């Protein structure tokens, strides 16, 4: 095993990539390794450990902007933000829950660079945007061993191509980020969740649509079938003995109370109602965010995450669950489906998606599945060709996380 490189500053990072490039040695780039089992299983021996590039460089709460070295642990950023009653509004998913069996909490595993590279946003995605929408700028070393930067440290900026978007979700295959600047927002004063019990999936989607399309500023809408709801750590959810559809409102206290009352009126015709307040509401949405209901399922259960048009959610999930004993959890008002199914049935998932239906990501699976099934949705041939050219514009020799996003770039 070659020794893992662990640069302590940007100059050393540049040296490390330069060395790898000169020898054409592919690098397995990682921060704290919390998502090492996400994505394509690839065997790259030479590690590049980013965890020593750590620390918050600047944080101005009234500017809503934070800059940190890419290897900064997320929990460090989250605690700095919470001191000023701010947060990353997109609710970053803590994949360690589903990948490593961690308990859901307010302190996520992993680094800020890893969070951006993976690009997974939680329930508030429908209201506040995703990871991509909160990356304002970065510094990075490309696979050409060149330092470059893009974006800025201010909220509003259209100077040059927006490469920050490209970094989000690129799984470290384009460049190794050394420093990132993110947009942060105030934590809402109050949070309440209205629960509707006993809806089947098409009705639940209709209820969520009514809520999200209302003027009551819903910040999350999810649906758990009965078997999933039963595993919640929130008593009112687990004890309902039925499927649970949940809709959240957040904001100043008086506003939340008024909107909650309006939502109850709107949702009353759908079924029996309950309400979750502050702590319980927060706990419930952390479970949904991290799909923690499958935290302890057996290893031969594969976990998938599908991004689809909300109106197609129920149909797509039904097509899959009908064929095998899959469980489906809906978030984003039906636009996000988490699926747990026996790993032998993985082919059903992508077959259920038409071309315009979005994409399916394999989040957790056994190694044998991960070596044969592409973790990220295979793009159309023309998009695949363009993606390869983009990869090559940043990393022509394919030394950065080869194959981690698309199997084809592991040539």
């Amino acid at each position, binding site marked *: 095993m070659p020794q893992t490189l662990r640069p302590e500053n940007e100059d050393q990072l540049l040296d490390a990539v330069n060395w790898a490039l000169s020898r054409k040695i592919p690098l397995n780039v990682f921060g704290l390794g919390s998502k090492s089992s996400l994505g394509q299983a690839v065997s790259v021996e030479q590690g590049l450990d980013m965890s020593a590039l750590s620390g918050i460089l600047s944080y101005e709460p009234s500017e809503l902007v934070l800059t940190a070295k890419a290897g900064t642990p997320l929990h460090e950023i989250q605690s700095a933000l919470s001191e000023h009653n701010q947060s990353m509004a997109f609710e970053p998913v803590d994949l360690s829950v589903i990948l490593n069996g961690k308990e859901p909490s307010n302190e996520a595993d992993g680094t800020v660079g890893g969070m951006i590279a993976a690009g997974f946003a939680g329930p508030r995605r429908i209201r506040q945007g995703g990871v991509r929408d909160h990356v304002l700028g970065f510094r990075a070393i490309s696979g050409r*061993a060149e330092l470059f930067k893009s974006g800025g440290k201010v909220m509003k900026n259209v100077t040059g191509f927006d490469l920050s978007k490209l970094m989000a979700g690129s799984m470290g295959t384009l460049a190794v980020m050394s420093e990132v600047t993110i947009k942060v927002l105030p934590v809402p004063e109050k949070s309440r969740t209205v629960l509707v019990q006993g809806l089947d999936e098409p009705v639940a989607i209709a209820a969520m649509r009514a809520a999200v399309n209302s003027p009551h500023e819903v910040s999350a809408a999810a649906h758990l079938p009965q078997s999933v709801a039963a595993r919640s750590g929130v008593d009112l959810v687990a004890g309902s003995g039925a499927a649970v559809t949940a809709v959240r409102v957040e904001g100043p206290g*008086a506003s939340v109370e008024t909107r909650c009352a309006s939502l109850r009126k709107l949702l009353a015709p759908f079924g029996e109602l309950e309400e979750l307040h502050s702590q319980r509401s927060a706990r419930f949405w952390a479970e949904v965010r991290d799909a923690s209901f499958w935290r302890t399922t057996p290893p031969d259960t594969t976990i998938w995450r599908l991004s689809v048009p909300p109106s197609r959610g129920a149909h797509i999930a039904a097509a899959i669950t009908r064929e095998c004993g899959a469980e489906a959890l809906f978030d984003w008002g039906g636009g996000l489906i988490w699926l747990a199914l026996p790993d032998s049935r993985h082919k059903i998932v992508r077959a259920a998606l038409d071309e315009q239906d979005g994409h399916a990501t394999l989040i957790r699976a056994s190694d044998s599945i991960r070596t044969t099934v592409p973790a990220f949705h295979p793009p159309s041939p023309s998009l695949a060709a363009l993606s390869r050219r983009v990869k090559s514009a940043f990393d022509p020799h394919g030394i950065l996380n080869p194959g981690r996003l698309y199997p084809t770039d592991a040539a």
Partner: protein
Amino acid sequence: MIMPEPDADVIARRDEIVLALRDIVPGEGVIAEQNELSAYESDGLSAYRQRPMVVVLPETTAQVSDILKYCHANGIKVVPRGAGTGLSGGALPLADGVTLGLGKFNQIKEIDFSNRCVVAQPGVTNLGISDAVAHEGFYYAPDPSSQIACSIGGNVAENSGGVHCLKYGLTTNNVLGVEIVMMDGEIIRLGGRHLEAGGYDLLGVVTGSEGLLGVITEVTVRILQKPATARALLLGFGSSEQAGDCVGGIIDHGIIPGGLEMMDKHAIHATEDFVHAGYPLDVAALLIVELDGPQVEVDLLIDQVEHIASGCGATYSRASTTEDERLTFWAGRKNAFPAVGRISPDYICMDGTIPRSQLSYVLRRLSQMSAEYGLRCANVFHAGDGNLHPLILFDANVADELERAEAFGAEILKLCVAVGGVLTGEHGVGVEKRDLMGEMFSEDDMKQQQRLKCAFDPDQLLNPGKVYPTLHRCAELGKMHVHNGELPFPDLPRF
């Protein structure tokens, strides 16, 4: 402004090119008469003008694809153009280029309330989208001040902003998908009606790419339910420092207003004389704070903001009590540019973003520069997100005033970068700020951005001469400079 040297061979083949384009787009879709071409000489940045070689106005994606295929095969440059309202010269024609106008793509293809989106052709106006969904209480959030005229395709190309960006984001945060035609004629769809496009976020880089990566032929945007209530608050201060403190205080308090605008004394007086919005004339800085959402929340936050403002020394405070009054408050701000146009024969509008903490310093420097250059300057400012719009007043008929105004403008943008900000917050680089890119980006930064361009358009035929000061050949950009390999890095920690 130096543009790429026109290709004499291409210009010599003009007649043949016009005929070929007429084969693709029959009828009146090809404009070749010199007097008709003059309408396309500039976009919203009228200081720069160039008559295009020919204009083509296709009606279908297949025609766009055929035009680009033909131009690609024949080495002809193409400049895409939306409504021509852009403020940075992104649609400035080329003497040896085809201007490809998307004005005939003016249909809304689908309104999809279930998925909260609208699928539109690129020539549909920004306001046209909001109007089409208003009957169900929805709207499209980004609202550039040209929203009556500007097209959604142009908005995507420029990543346009508006006064509600702080709370609702720019165009890029509100686009779900596009269909683009690449320079070789290939048609590609990015994103769709779902969130997160999947794979590399190419949708994210095409948005704001100023027509350099592809021609947009369809756009899917997210629509939002209109807030139940909106009220605006006018707050006057004796100094811009106090106004700046108030903005910081509002955000520190956890309040993200729907709109948060600042105007300086010159802008207040110019707009008040023009639209009589009822602005106080005895203040040095005016804030317009708009709170939107449920009635109870808006009323509560209006009180809180008034309280914060009085703590910051506000000398004037007035909250709108009717929708008419709210719109009157905005009428001044929204007419700030034409209002300034009334008090000066000409003006140029700058568009830098700064960290808000630098506002007082930047405004002080602006008034010093104004004295040094002998030109008046009025400031309107999207205060919530730090986006500054200094308007430099000049008279083009006075010798050297345009040059002085441009030099003043360049110095403002350099100042924005020097204090930690950026060259452009929402208008784009285009040709206007092209030669200032080096203030913000190193040569390596720009080369990496241009390598992305090469992945889309390796022959650099699409909108060349815009955004980047130096055109590098893609082959040259792709060359590797690999250092020879013994690891000379003894300091590098290994484990």
